[in-house]
């Protein structure tokens, strides 16, 4: 008891922004039976009207899934029973290109999440996925006129970009990578395809928003982005789900190809509900002089395995990863980043913040690999963890493997708490203890929020307030 005497007590605040549920009626939704068998995989393939190669690929992935073991180093996923997860749930209506045509119940959901408003005010295009399928996809005319392709992956798979999809799909994240990459390959559905032609700079971001509304379901969207030579794109990914008492699963896959002299910024604010197992895989490959920037905020999920990886293949290619993870009550968030330096004069900067509170387990895990070919490579890693009580955990597990003598690698990590002096200072200026702590935590997260567009930085700060209140 003594241990909590001097701790903040903050009243609960409303989480209904994300937790509201729209009941899915059987009449409007198709839901595949729970479990993962060859029959279910073939059924997904049939639903998607897959080309033959994709159907065979799915079956191969299923075999791999059954053969590959669960990792022995991460959080427990014992609570995840694939026999109780439906791999495919979709609304019976098709994807729409006009917002007014989206079914009313789904439209209400996205309206409450502010997606159409964001599209009107600050985005070049939006994709909205509800459960297993895209329900809405639109790109602004002026952006489309530049030759930018932003569409659902299924359409691209059958259209003029079919060959491009085939030559890139799960080549960067092969299904042999790990068990859940194999699962993804077997039952993937939905997601976006983006192609930015040579030299095209998209001034305002594109966004995909993923909502998993069904209980006991999985979402397996695939995002494939190709930024061609000299092109520039900012892509934003958002995710949320209402909370249920049964486990939900997200095993998405993101493959990013950054060509010579191109730049891609990929920002994510992840706020899955706290019954979600988030086993997501993200990977980028960067050619000569290319730049890959990740901005990643992990707030939701019951359990997360998330380590966006960058392969710096081309000479002088660069990567920057800025991330924040907030692990609250009941959460075990194992997050970080991976980078492989292959090209000469490549450079990477990883800067992460982690906050643990109310029994949450936050683990920063990373790997920096500098191959022999990566002459004069530079890597810098900085990870800071903030402990807000002594029932939580904050662990940092960074790994470095350096195989060239002229690399320059720096690493620093710090772990600690909010200083009493800082709180006292703020309180002496009339700020309550709870506000003082929330301010300090927001300040701690500032290096991440300043990398986000204003409206997303505001959302992130709201999420921090929500988590600080103990009601996240």
């Amino acid at each position: 008891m003594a241990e909590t005497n001097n701790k903040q007590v903050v009243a609960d605040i409303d989480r209904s922004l994300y937790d509201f549920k729209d009941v899915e009626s059987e009449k409007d939704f198709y839901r595949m039976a729970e479990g993962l068998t060859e029959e279910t995989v073939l059924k997904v393939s049939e639903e998607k009207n897959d080309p033959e190669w994709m159907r065979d690929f799915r079956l191969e992935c299923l075999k791999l899934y059954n053969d590959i073991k669960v990792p022995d180093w991460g959080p427990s996923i014992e609570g995840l029973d694939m026999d109780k997860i439906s791999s495919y749930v979709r609304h019976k209506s098709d994807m729409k290109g006009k917002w007014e045509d989206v079914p009313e119940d789904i439209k209400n959901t996205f309206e409450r999440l502010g997606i159409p408003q964001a599209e009107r005010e600050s985005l070049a295009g939006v994709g909205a996925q509800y459960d297993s399928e895209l329900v809405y996809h639109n790109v602004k005319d002026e952006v489309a006129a530049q030759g930018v392709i932003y569409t659902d992956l299924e359409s691209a798979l059958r259209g003029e970009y079919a060959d491009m999809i085939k030559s890139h799909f799960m080549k960067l994240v092969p299904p042999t990578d790990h068990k859940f990459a194999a699962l993804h390959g077997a039952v993937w559905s939905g997601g976006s395809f983006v192609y930015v032609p040579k030299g095209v700079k998209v001034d305002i971001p594109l966004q995909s928003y993923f909502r998993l509304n069904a209980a006991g379901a999985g979402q397996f969207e695939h995002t494939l982005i190709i930024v061609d030579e000299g092109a520039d794109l900012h892509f934003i990914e958002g995710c949320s789900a209402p909370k249920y008492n049964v486990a939900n699963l997200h095993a998405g896959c993101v493959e990013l190809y950054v060509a010579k002299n191109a730049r891609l910024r990929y920002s994510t604010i992840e706020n899955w509900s706290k019954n979600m197992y988030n086993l997501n895989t993200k990977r980028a490959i960067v050619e000569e002089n290319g730049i890959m920037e990740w901005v990643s905020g992990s707030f939701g999920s019951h359990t997360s395995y998330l380590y966006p990886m960058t392969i710096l293949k081309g000479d002088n290619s660069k990567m920057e990863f800025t991330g924040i993870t907030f692990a609250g009550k009941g959460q075990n968030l194992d997050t970080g980043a991976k980078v492989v330096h292959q090209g000469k004069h490549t450079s990477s900067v990883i800067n992460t913040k982690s906050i643990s509170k109310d029994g949450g387990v936050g683990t920063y895990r990373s790997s920096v690999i500098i191959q022999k070919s990566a002459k004069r490579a530079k890597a810098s890693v900085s990870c800071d963890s903030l402990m807000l009580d002594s029932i939580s955990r904050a662990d940092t597990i960074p790994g470095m493997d350096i195989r060239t003598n002229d690399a320059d690698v720096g690493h620093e990590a710090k772990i600690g708490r909010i200083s009493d002096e800082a709180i006292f200072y703020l309180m002496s200026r009339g700020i309550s203890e709870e506000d003082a702590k929330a301010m300090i935590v927001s300040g701690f997260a500032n290096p991440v929020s300043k990398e986000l567009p204003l409206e997303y930085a505001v959302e992130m700060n709201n999420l921090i307030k929500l988590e600080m209140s103990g009601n996240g």
Partner: protein
Amino acid sequence: MSNDLNMKVNVLPVLTYNFLHVNDSTLQISDFNISDNKSPLAKELPAGVTVRQAVPFAEAGELFKANNDRILATIDGHVEPNGDTSKRDDSQALRTGMGADVDGLMISMGATVDIYTVDEGVKADKPIVISYDMKDGDASLSGQIIHAKKDSEVTVVIVYTSDKDAKGFQGVSTRLFAEDGARINLIKSQLLGDGFVHFDDIGGACLNDGKIDLVTVELGGCKVFSSAYVNLAEKNTEFTSNMGYLVRGDHNLDINYVADQRGKKTQALMQFKGVLMDTASKTFRGTLDFKKGSSGSVGDEQEDTLLLGEDVVNKTMPVILCQEEDVEGRHGATIGELGEDILFYMQTRGIDEEEAKRIMIKARLDSVARLIPDPEIMQKTLYYIQNIV
């Protein structure tokens, strides 16, 4: 006695990605015919220090079992970190850096240890010096326990030597127990020949106000495991460690250091400075583990590695585990070749690049070697450095 044991040692306290191949290492001793299981006796004992020789390994562990309720007191509300491996070594009477497989080896091969006991309140007036002088073809397993009773203080210097070209195997278990207010300074200088497989598996525990200070110089051997696990079991306990190493040729150094911070206001400071040359490889694992209840504790680990061979392989795993709010933990690592500014500075003073490198290697290693309190062994170590550099 021959054997075909392949043991899993230096297991990381928490597992990580398997593709990094740092979660553990394998110690192969099947090539050696272990015939010698005794430790050399210290040349001269300080007043107040006694020794029991050739105590069977398992029997020697009774000392730690008798104090188990203080060394490994149950931590209420402990939450395991992801990938936790701690249960693997639960059988150890005192946790060591290399882990339970080495205890099993010592017992199965009939190894014995010498137990040095420092009487209560005794401040040893000179170091205990233990010299392992290995011959070509030797294969031995041995060890020592240093037991510093309440408010005592002792310095122990262990030196491992052989001819430069000698081959063989030498496994050593060193266990340290600092009771309330006691202080143990352990200095280890490893100057073995290029053909030696060597390990020194160190485990330590400190009770209230106890302190363990470790200085390690690793210069010889073709495959070396250098490991320590120090349990800061109670309040105001301290562990400091300074290691200097040089790995050359195709040799390999495998390090696993853990500071288990359980008591309140504990302090762990670990520094590792080293050089990799030619095609040498090194794996460094360093862990600060702030257990629940270790409020007011501080931990700092720093690694500084100079890479001087085009084909070197350096793996670094600096881990911080934490389940306590009121702590300060830091780790830092700088890995790379000699800085251009230092080289430039040297060159402006007429020193060429090769000579500049030699100076920097020597400076790095000498700074640790000069912490050796026995003048003869310090000189021997400095001479060894001079020769290889």
